[in-house]
């Protein structure tokens, strides 16, 4: 089974992902793509606490994730790929690696230079640029916090 969800969410593994999406998609594995966490054993242990029995998590750098995307797609284990921000997902997508895929934006909170576009999505200049670059890489971007919520189009996010 290929990767069942690509999601951008500042909280990475948390209730909405494990229970909301996990309950619908039944993943066997979460892949967290984050250079910092890939080097932080205590944070990895923390995120593993949130997993359901039988699930596993991998913590990889962006570079490693780009090398292993094909492996995960061919693996029978159902996988959810998570990044903390749009910039990381854009790096993962560079060169058409995610062409034809859909990226789910699930949680970007307010911060400097960001304005609220949805209750759970705040975008600033950097986020808007990353979204446009993702589209230029052949990726479809939509926002949805939970699987039964309304899917919000990129056009609505950017305008």
């Amino acid at each position, binding site marked *: 089974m290929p990767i069942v969800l690509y999601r951008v969410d*500042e*909280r990475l*593994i*948390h*209730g909405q992902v*494990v*229970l909301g999406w996990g309950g619908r998609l039944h993943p066997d594995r979460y892949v967290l793509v984050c250079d910092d966490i890939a080097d932080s054993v*205590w*944070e990895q242990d*923390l*995120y593993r*606490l*949130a*997993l359901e029995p039988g699930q596993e998590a991998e913590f990889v750098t962006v570079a490693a994730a780009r090398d292993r995307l094909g492996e995960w797609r061919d693996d029978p284990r159902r996988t959810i790929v998570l990044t903390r921000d749009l910039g990381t997902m854009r790096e993962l997508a560079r060169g058409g690696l995610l062409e034809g895929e859909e990226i789910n934006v699930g949680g970007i*909170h*307010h*911060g400097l230079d960001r304005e609220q576009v949805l*209750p759970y999505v705040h975008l600033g200049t950097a986020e808007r640029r990353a979204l446009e670059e993702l589209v230029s890489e052949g990726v479809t971007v939509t926002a949805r916090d939970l699987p039964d919520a309304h899917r919000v189009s990129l056009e609505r996010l950017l305008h």
Partner: protein
Amino acid sequence: MSEAELARGVILAHGSMADGLVSAVRRIAGGAAEALIAVSNDARSPAELKAMLDDLARQGPLVVFADLQSGSCGMAALSTCRQGPGCAVVCGVNLPILLDFVFHRDLPLDELLPRLVAKGRQAILPASGPG
């Protein structure tokens, strides 16, 4: 024991759950509920939650009551409290835990924590009416 030496409790939960729990403690225990601070994760980033908890943990003994270990509340709490002995986390908070906390927050954390967890577990039980 001065107020500064007594543990404070932060209820960190989704939606309005924390406000509701503090309201319930106040209804039952009156002013003792002042030992509790209600915090919702609504519209707060993981970094904001952690910064808030870090600030409270610097002020004195702290118990963070999270609704769900696997949620952003539990994660922020565990991330903060790994850094010092004056901070502890209880996940899966319920009303009996909080009622016990507000009346026993003078206990050292290493004594208080097992007591709270036991109280919370004891309060979950199957019950049926007469007949």
